[in-house]
């Protein structure tokens, strides 16, 4: 376990672990503020108006936070990125990179899960539909998987096209889960009540994609790390 944390710190220094903690701290403070507002206004129109659209905006943060570490890590495999030569010159650099890939995935996932839990607490307090949060969580797994699959693609344009394509597709799909969708439409709550199996299939597929991406990346990491 220590080896994996050390490999992560080797690639990210000390700053990212502390910024992760700071980020979670800020989210914690947010929960307290929202709880205080809820208590003071007794669930009135003020908090309802203030938090309209909060679910859509903040849920998008869940998959994005997960991508930050992985994108940064995989960029070091590109010779054009500052730091590439430093990391390649380290003792046992291929193995260190492999460990860093695993730990970056775990940290990304952990961060996403904690963030989702915090958001669920906030949104529950504010009586906001959790559909978008769950969708953000599913998207976290999908994007992590995709990052792992495309991490070694050197052409940034190709990676961007893949990412943009995925965002467009998921953005379209997200419409189904939004509480702002037409009341007669297929919302998360509707699916949960009428066809829960579909949600399980969706979540299962996302987890499978994440697992496949991780297995692929770990499998090829040593070979792809020193390519030239």
């Amino acid at each position, binding site marked *: 376990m220590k080896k994996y944390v*050390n490999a992560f*710190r*080797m*690639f*990210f*220094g*000390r*700053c990212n672990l502390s910024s992760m903690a700071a980020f979670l701290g800020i989210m914690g403070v947010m929960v307290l503020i929202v709880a205080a507002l809820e208590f003071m206004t007794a669930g009135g129109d003020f908090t309802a108006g203030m938090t309209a659209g909060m679910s859509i905006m903040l849920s998008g943060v869940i998959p994005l936070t997960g991508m930050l570490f992985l994108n940064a890590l995989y960029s*070091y495999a590109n010779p054009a*990125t*500052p*730091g590439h*030569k*430093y990391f*390649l*010159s*380290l*003792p*046992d650099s*291929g193995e*260190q990179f492999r460990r860093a890939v695993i730990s970056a995935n775990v940290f990304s996932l952990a961060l996403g899960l904690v963030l989702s839990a915090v958001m669920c607490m906030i949104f529950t307090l504010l009586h906001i539909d959790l559909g978008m949060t769950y969708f953000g969580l599913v998207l976290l797994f999908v994007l992590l998987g995709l990052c792992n699959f495309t991490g070694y693609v050197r052409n940034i344009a190709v990676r961007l096209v893949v990412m943009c394509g995925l965002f467009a597709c998921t953005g379209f799909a997200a419409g189904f889960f939004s509480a702002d969708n037409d009341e007669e439409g297929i919302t998360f709550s509707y699916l949960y009540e009428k066809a829960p199996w579909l949600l399980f299939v969706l979540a299962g597929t996302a987890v499978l994609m994440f697992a496949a991406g991780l297995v692929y990346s770990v499998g090829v990491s040593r070979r792809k790390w*020193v390519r*030239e």
Partner: protein
Amino acid sequence: MDNNFCVSARGLTKKYSKFTLGALDIDIPMGFSTALIGANGAGKTTLIDILCGVIRRSEGEVTYFGSDKDIASPALRERIGYCASNAFFPQGFTAKDIAVSMELAYASFDRKKFAELCEKFEVDSEFTKKPRQMIKQSDGNRMRTCLAAVLARNTELLVLDEPGSSLDPLMRDRLCDRMRDYLDEGDGRKSIIFSTHNIADMENAADYAVFMDRGRLIESGFIEDLKEKYMIARGEAKDYEQAKPLLMSSSANRTVFDGLALAENAEKLAAMGVDSETPTLQQLSIGLLKYAEEQR
């Protein structure tokens, strides 16, 4: 393989689509400082990157310290200190991040020494209040930080790619002193390989020189020996045409000419009324690189 070489390469080749390094047969003596000299695109950085395991060679063999052949071996990497020409560390790293990362990576990294060297080189150390990220520092300060990091390790071979290029003349002079100290500390067991374009400034730091042109080795040897092997010929313009066949490379104006020649031709040139003098490393480099360019 001779044990007196810190690096010996045989048939070392690296093939790119538009450039090929080698095949190089090269021996770098142990206990000395070796300068890799060549024009842009000569293959100095490629050679350094191969020696440090940053890129893979296409063919050939490299032996380190007389016996080690596997640059992927962590034990061998512990013995080699490497510093690239620019953007060596990630842009977001501060001195603190570098200290954390290198302490985890290298058993021989001395964090206290790193902080001391940072202060000596007048750059942010990990104890500086709010140390700046690499991206927020000048090229010169980035290089100083890299040098402090690599010198804070207990290594037997330092490989520095253009260490003086972004440094001011005063710092270049200090670097030469540090390199001399490093060799003295090793008592014949520590060696340095560095590439440079600032030949005049770095001459004091070099004992041995390897001249490269378009991926090929054109000359190598101890600088004192090379200064005996070659000479600078200087004469009046009227004698230029007569002396030219004996000059390897030359330049002339309406009144005088000068050029590089083999010292063995000194008597013949003297008979023509041409003066000779010992070349500096800079003159030697320019003469040899010009000669290589004309021979292409």
